[in-house]
């Protein structure tokens, strides 16, 4: 039996659906695109406003406050190295992409995670969806995004946002569900309202887990933002993609080093922030 008819039909159907959405939802996608690119442009403008050494000093100060002086200095040196390689503009636009996508992922992911933490049935439905998002190859998200939003940073942002969201949801939901029993009992015995129980007991205990979720989202975003170079995201991802196409190995290695530096600096900073949330809590 020739099953290709079935697959062909499915493919046509998918294409038609996408075309229909594209035709009829244009205003919506235009709005989404403007929202995403507006946020991105705003953050990028902010990051490009000061010269590179100011950003490096800020990183040094954060590293010093959150970890220790040596880490702060190291972070500054690493960032200055990016500028020395002549990749400062690209590094900053990658940072802006990652920041925009992560902020969006958190704005959506944390509230969804809170609801999932409270409503077990919602969590049961959500889990397989998150599994699906995380198991599909991340390239998949680029195609419908490019069809609906076109070539450019908006597509990269939406795909990165999708990939970065699941850890924020999962770890927030986990944090809410993991409130120690004795503290729930304390809340009940003290006559707390549901809202007080949430703000005074559940949320404080969930903070370390939520912070871990933020760190994980950020890391996922970094992974995706390089892949999104294919769709004209701008930044280091596009530099690497261009270098690969022209077999410019030297440039691709430079850009890769810049990515690694940026990732490690942000990872360490957010990890220590998460640890401090935990230490303040225990």
């Amino acid at each position: 039996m020739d099953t290709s008819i079935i697959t062909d039909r499915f493919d046509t159907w998918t294409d038609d659906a996408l075309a229909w959405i594209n035709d009829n939802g244009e205003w919506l996608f235009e709005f989404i695109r403007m929202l995403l690119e507006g946020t991105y442009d705003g953050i990028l403008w902010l990051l490009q406003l000061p010269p590179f050494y100011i950003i490096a000093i800020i990183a040094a100060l954060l590293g010093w406050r959150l970890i220790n002086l040596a880490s702060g200095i190291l972070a500054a040196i690493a960032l200055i190295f990016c500028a020395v390689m002549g990749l400062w503009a690209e590094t900053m636009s990658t940072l802006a992409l990652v920041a925009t996508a992560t902020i969006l992922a958190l704005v959506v992911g944390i509230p969804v995670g809170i609801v999932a933490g409270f409503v077990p049935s919602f969590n049961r439905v959500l889990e397989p969806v998150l599994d699906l998002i995380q198991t599909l190859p991340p390239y998949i998200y680029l195609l419908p995004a490019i069809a609906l939003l076109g070539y450019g940073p908006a597509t990269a942002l939406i795909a990165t946002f999708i990939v970065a969201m699941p850890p924020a949801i999962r770890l927030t939901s986990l944090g809410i569900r993991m409130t120690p029993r004795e503290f729930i009992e304390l809340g009940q015995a003290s006559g707390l309202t549901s809202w007080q129980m949430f703000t005074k007991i559940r949320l404080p205990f969930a903070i370390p887990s939520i912070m871990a979720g933020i760190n994980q989202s950020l890391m996922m975003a970094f992974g995706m933002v390089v892949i999104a170079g294919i769709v004209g995201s701008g930044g280091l991802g596009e530099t690497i993609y261009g270098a690969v196409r022209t077999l410019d190995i030297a440039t691709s290695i430079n850009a890769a080093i810049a990515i690694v530096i940026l990732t490690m600096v942000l990872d360490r900073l957010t990890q220590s922030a998460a640890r401090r949330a935990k230490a303040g809590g225990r």
Partner: protein
Amino acid sequence: MKTAMNDSNEVLIDCQNVWKIFGARAPAAIQAVADRGLSKKQILQDFNCVVGVSDASLHVRRGEIFCIMGLSGSGKSTLIRLLNRLIEPSLGTITVKGKDVARLNAAQLRDMRARNIGMVFQSVALLPNRTVLENAAFGLEVRGVAKDERHKTARAALEKVGLADWTARYPNELSGGMQQRVGLARALAADPEIILMDEPFSALDPLIRRQLQDEFRQLTKSLGKSAVFITHDLEEAIRIGDRIAIMKDGVIVQVGTAEEIVTKPADDYVSDFVAGISRIHLVKAHSVMQPVAKFRASHPQHDVEALLRTSPDADIGELIDLTMQSNRDAVAVVENGTVIGVVTTRALLRGVAGTPEHEPAAA
């Protein structure tokens, strides 16, 4: 350990025939209990339900410390949670300050928990992200008391438990005993009439534990609070409680003062428990002394007025100390300036051994 200051007999907590049955078929089991009066064993067999508390009745008066003593699985923790409805009773009525707890709506129940009934937990449950002061003020914060005022009240409560210098610290900087003091201060700061103590001192080492037991009793009495105190340790119950209920398998097997439980155990289970208990601090002078006239008749060589003196509430331990200091083997018991009886060495030995037949004591 009767207290003389128990001037009011107002009943604050009243439990009548309370049951708690756990399990998927609990409603059917409850119906069967109400209709046919099934036993625990039958309920487990017929309905596969566990009886947590079975037909418990008790009352707690204003100013009284009521201990519930039982081993793990005896239902004592369930019973105490029925009192503030952390657990819903299956059957029976629980009245707190004249109000049927089961009939309160959510807001009334919250209000009662916030104002009338405080609770202290074995796990302490101090919020780790708050200072000692903020923890102690928690109950007031929940009630919406302004920051300055609640911190003032909390500071006063922490002073009472001897932690005035630790207000700015975090719970993890405190020892177990100190943490439990903060737990007590948190309950006291909200100024409830009743404090529920759920095995608060069980996890502490013996020395700290005794110290806290004494402090708790003293504090509760001086503030005029009532307390229900859960413990698995009979000695602790005796040390702290005005009255003690002994629980076994969800049933209250005996309620009485420490002296009553030790001298008149209701059944073999209780007498097994009591066997290891020292009577030295339980039996008092008034129950072992003999009338002055009888003492004069048997010991004509002694002058009663020359004996060392003590009060009728002195326990055997104190009497032994006095006898050791004295060069005579008897101590005079004095009430309102007159000698009302004499405790001889023989009487002391009887008191320690718990020989049932006392020498006839003066009324």
